[in-house]
Each structure stands twice: as C-alpha cells, then as structure tokens.
C-alpha cells in the first residue's frame, strides 16, 4: 500500500458514481426514445416528416405537393408563400391518417 496517492481512492469512487449515473441516464433516455410528442420543424424535409410521423410519403405529398429530395419545410414555405406554421398545421391535421 506504500506510496498510494491520496487522490486515488476518491477518484475511483467518483468514477464508479459517474459510471452508475451515466449508465442510468443512458438506459432512461434510451427507453424513452419516441415517447415525447413529435413536433414538425422547418428544417425537416417531406421524407423526414413522413418517417417522423409514421405517415406514407404519398400522404405528405398530398399536403405539401412534390418537391425534389433535400427540400426543407422552410424552403417549401418560401416557394409556396404559405407560412411554415400553416404547413405544420396542415400536416398535423393528417396525423394518424395512415394505418
């Protein structure tokens, strides 16, 4: 035991506590994936929104129209002249539309 630095035992204790806390947090967050209500945002693309809300791409296309891959909701709003909030409301109205 000779020459054992004084910080070694507290550091070991702290690392064990951190390991337990981080594992608990990882498991807790992991088990809650998808529990929070899905909110559509302007950076999302129609394809992403379809995946996010478990809607078919055809349903999203019906609401927004067809755009090239990589077009975001913000860009669709700018191109169509319809505010993002209105597009989101239209999409929200179709939630649960697909079986």
């Amino acid at each position, binding site marked *: *035991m000779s*020459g*054992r630095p004084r910080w070694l035992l507290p550091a070991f204790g702290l*690392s064990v506590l*951190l390991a337990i806390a981080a594992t608990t947090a990882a498991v807790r967050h992991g088990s*809650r*994936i998808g529990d929070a209500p899905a909110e559509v945002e302007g950076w999302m693309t129609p394809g992403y929104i379809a*995946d*996010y809300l478990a809607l078919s791409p055809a349903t999203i296309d019906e609401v927004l129209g067809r755009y090239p891959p*990589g077009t975001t909701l913000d860009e669709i709003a700018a191109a169509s002249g319809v505010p993002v909030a209105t597009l989101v409301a239209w999409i929200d109205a179709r939630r649960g539309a697909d079986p």
Partner: protein
Amino acid sequence: MIETALGLVPTHGGAVLFLATFLSCLALPIPTSVLLLAGGAFVATGDLDLATVAGSAYAGAILGDQVGYAAGRIGGQRLWARLLARPRSGPLARRAGERLHRRAWLTVFLSRWLVSALGPWVNLAAGTTRVGWRSYTGASLAGEAVWVALYVGLGHAFGGRLEDVGTTVAWALIAICAVAVAFGLGRTLSQRFTPAA
C-alpha cells in the same frame, strides 16, 4: 442555432458535413454528432445518398486531424521544449509524452469516437511530442471510420428521433469512459493494496 445547422444538411449535404467534421477536429464547438445523425436520417429518407454523407464527413475529419497534427508538429515544438525545460512541469510533461508514445495508436483511435471531446487536443499533443505520422494516421483513419459509421448508422436507424438518440449515445459513451477509468483506477488500487511477497 441547431435547427439552422440541421436545415443546412439536406440542402447542402456533403459540404456542410465536410466542414463540420473538419472544424470540430480543430476544437471548434460544432454539434457535429447531431449533424452526422441527421446525415444518416436524410440518407434513410432518400434526401441524401450514403456515399456523399459518409465520404464527406470522413474526408473532413481526416483532413482536420492532419491539420491538427501538423499544427502541433510545426507550432508546438517551442512550447514543448519550454515545458520540458521547466523544473516543475518538466518531469510531468516528459512522463505524459512517454505515455502518449507508448499508447499512441490506442489513444488516437479512442479519442476519435469514444472520448471525441479530447480529439483535437490529442492531435496537437501527438504532433508536438512527435508521435510517428504513420502510426498517428493509421489510428486516425480507423477511429474516424468508427465515428462516422456509428453516428451515420444510428441516424439511419433512428433518424426520426435525433435528439433522443444523440442524448442516449452521449450518455452511453460517458458511461463506457467512466467504467474504463474506474476499472483502471481499481486495478491500480488493488495492486497498491497487495502486500509485497
């Protein structure tokens, strides 16, 4: 700010991911992990293709590592020599340098993805203490491949829930690091407690 950055991924694709990984290797505070997750998610939705996302993120990270290493190698020498010459910091710096050299490959490899916050500093330290370029580059190539594959893969699989997945992965990586540190300290403690024969 994160929403703006996420919005750039589908519209500018590879260029944004290249720039993000490159700059994050130089210690700039960029939410690169979330952007990589988003890149994977946009691959899954057909907005981007996998080769562009993975290739540009990987290229940016490798180039960023090389710039960091070169900066240490060229610019860090004088500072390192001064640290070594000081009576108080000299022995400590020498020991740290020796340890880095002994485990250079593993240190560089793990600091690419497991403890990625240390990555830029390991780049500088590796260059400054003259870790061999071949060994450094080999570990950088392998580690960045794991980093890109891990985050793009998770984004592809769980794309709809970027923030949840990002938080879970971050905690899981912290847990792995803490377990590794606890294991190392525990081993040192047990060796020191073992009475000499």
